[in-house]
């Protein structure tokens, strides 16, 4: 069984922000010459006077957003995740995070699937970087249903937010009864064998992986964590307690993303084995989506296989999150970032 097809989060972003701007005059969009890719063009069509093209100049783009926030606007900054987070980090740190200004930074084309662009554009350490900034809220929606609600929620929230957006169409995992709440995780499936935490669009793959695993007799307790900061510590501890064995999975490196965040909380509050599944300590490469998901180990099948192997070896490893080693050496690019596997 597979999930039904849904919209790419970049278009949900353009549509939702345009819609919210109908009734909220504070909303403006600032583009870094990528509006035709990021979905920001939808906003330009709806509100040309509130769309500001800032050219290919990301440090200034983020700085200008900070300034506009001080005069009461709610600026949405739109560019690719790599350029927002990597190129403009000092602007974000000094002008947005430190003064805690009300800027919503959207990182388009985040993760592994960035339209065959290669390592310059593949940004899968963005969550680690943004999560490390004090005052920053980090949100990674799973599908269009959640993205729509999350965008509303971050407009209602006063303060800096990093919103992770993706390029490709993503399946729908939530129905209309779902209610997104900033800072809360949500249980997608109950099970007794292993607790799996996932975030962003990887949750759709984790969900399908859990269905495959159920056929194999492994019942996954699947928890989606759309807000990576602030983390739902209570929800994380409760879900870990449920099975006593935790796997995290994400379209992000296994260094400092959701896996890191979960490991930090559990090592403090409820030490149980935590295994991080995600992308290896590498930069990636160009390629078609399916080939990338497969090679880098986060396709539905590879995710299921990784979880299965970790559950099987559960007794053997006996470790805690702190003894997990990153296996992928620079000479083995693309080695899936599964920890503690033979």
């Amino acid at each position, binding site marked *: 069984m597979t999930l039904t097809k849904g919209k790419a989060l970049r278009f949900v972003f353009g549509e939702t922000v345009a819609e919210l701007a109908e009734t909220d005059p504070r909303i403006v969009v600032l*583009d870094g*010459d*990528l*509006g*035709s*890719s990021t979905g920001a*063009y939808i906003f*330009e*069509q709806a509100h*040309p006077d509130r769309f500001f*093209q800032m*050219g*290919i*100049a990301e*440090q*200034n783009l983020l700085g200008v957003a900070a300034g506009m926030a001080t005069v009461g606007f709610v600026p949405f900054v739109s560019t690719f995740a*790599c*350029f927002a987070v*990597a*190129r403009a980090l000092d602007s974000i740190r000094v002008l947005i995070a430190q003064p805690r200004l009300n800027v919503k930074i959207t990182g388009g084309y985040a993760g592994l699937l960035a*339209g*065959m*662009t*290669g*390592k*310059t*554009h593949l940004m899968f350490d963005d969550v680690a970087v943004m999560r490390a900034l004090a005052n920053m809220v980090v949100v990674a929606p799973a599908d269009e249903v959640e993205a729509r609600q999350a965008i509303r929620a971050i407009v209602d929230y006063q303060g800096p937010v990093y919103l992770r957006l993706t390029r490709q169409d993503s399946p729908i995992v939530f129905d209309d009864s779902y209610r997104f709440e900033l800072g809360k995780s949500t249980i997608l499936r109950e099970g007794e064998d292993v607790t799996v935490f996932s975030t962003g669009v990887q949750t759709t793959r984790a969900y399908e992986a859990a269905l495959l695993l159920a056929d194999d007799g492994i019942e996954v307790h699947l928890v989606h964590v759309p807000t990576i900061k602030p983390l739902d510590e209570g929800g994380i501890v409760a879900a870990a307690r449920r099975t006593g064995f935790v796997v995290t999975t994400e379209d992000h490196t296994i260094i400092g993303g959701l896996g890191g965040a979960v490991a930090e909380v559990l090592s403090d509050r409820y030490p149980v084995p935590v295994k991080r599944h995600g992308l290896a300590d590498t930069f990636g*490469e*160009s*390629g*078609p989506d399916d*080939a*990338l998901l497969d*090679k880098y180990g986060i396709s539905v099948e590879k995710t299921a296989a990784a979880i299965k192997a970790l559950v099987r070896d559960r007794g053997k490893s006996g470790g805690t999150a702190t003894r997990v080693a990153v296996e992928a050496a620079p000479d083995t690019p693309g080695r899936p970032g599964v920890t503690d596997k033979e």
Partner: protein
Amino acid sequence: MSKQTTVAGPEVTELEDLARRARAHIVRTIAGAHGGHLGGPLSVIDLLIALYFRVLNIRPDEPDWPDRDRCVLSKGHSSIALYTTLAMRGYFPIEELGTFDAIDSRLQGHPDMTATPGIDMSSGSLGLGFSGALGIAMGARAAGKDFTTYAVLGDGECNEGIVWEAAHAAQRYALDNIVAIVDHNKLQQFGWHGDTLDHRLSPYTGSQLVDRWSAFGWKVFEMDGHDIGDVLATVARARDHVGGPVAVISHTIKGKGISFMENNYQWHARVPTAEELAQALAELGATPAGGRS
């Protein structure tokens, strides 16, 4: 003291033919890969063919020859134009273009100096390549080497602050072993709009680019980037200039050579349909398979 100007190689008419064939490779490759850029590669290809066949002092069979001239495609999203040129120049087989953007390929979406022979500096995040090129030129001077470093930038790329940070430093050190060539095709990816939202404007108009580079202390030449004779003459002048850095503003047309792509921002990075590919190849006098009609 005059430096060597051009290297021996094909005549202008032959270069024009090479450029025409390169355009066909570019369009075919992007269609086959279902991804990549077209507008920028088509505007810059005449320049790259001229550089790699007649200007750069290079050894395709020895890509890392330490005394070679360097060329950094700072507008790295036009990688397919560079790969095509390198393949035609003998750095790797032309068939390898078929692996562009495929998994495990040496031909990455943006130039990767660790993957492809002939790439002097990784690029793809706009502005950075130029900064790296400046470092090569400064290193060459410090090491007492007399090769020349060429950097090819986009006009939209000139939005980036780092371009001007590097321009300032080059002038400060009066470097005359670096040539910046700006592919002024009058469009960026999305940019500012004109009277309608569909009408996207040039990032710089009139003499704005010339004025900016001049103001930063660079000697500035202009050329028609689709006139290979003009390209060879102007780049040679730029290379021979002594006492400070030279910028060449290369006037070009985005999507040049394929009627329906020319001056249309939507062809910045669009994949042609089968019909569009056929029409493009027909306009270039080429066939889908790569032969000549």
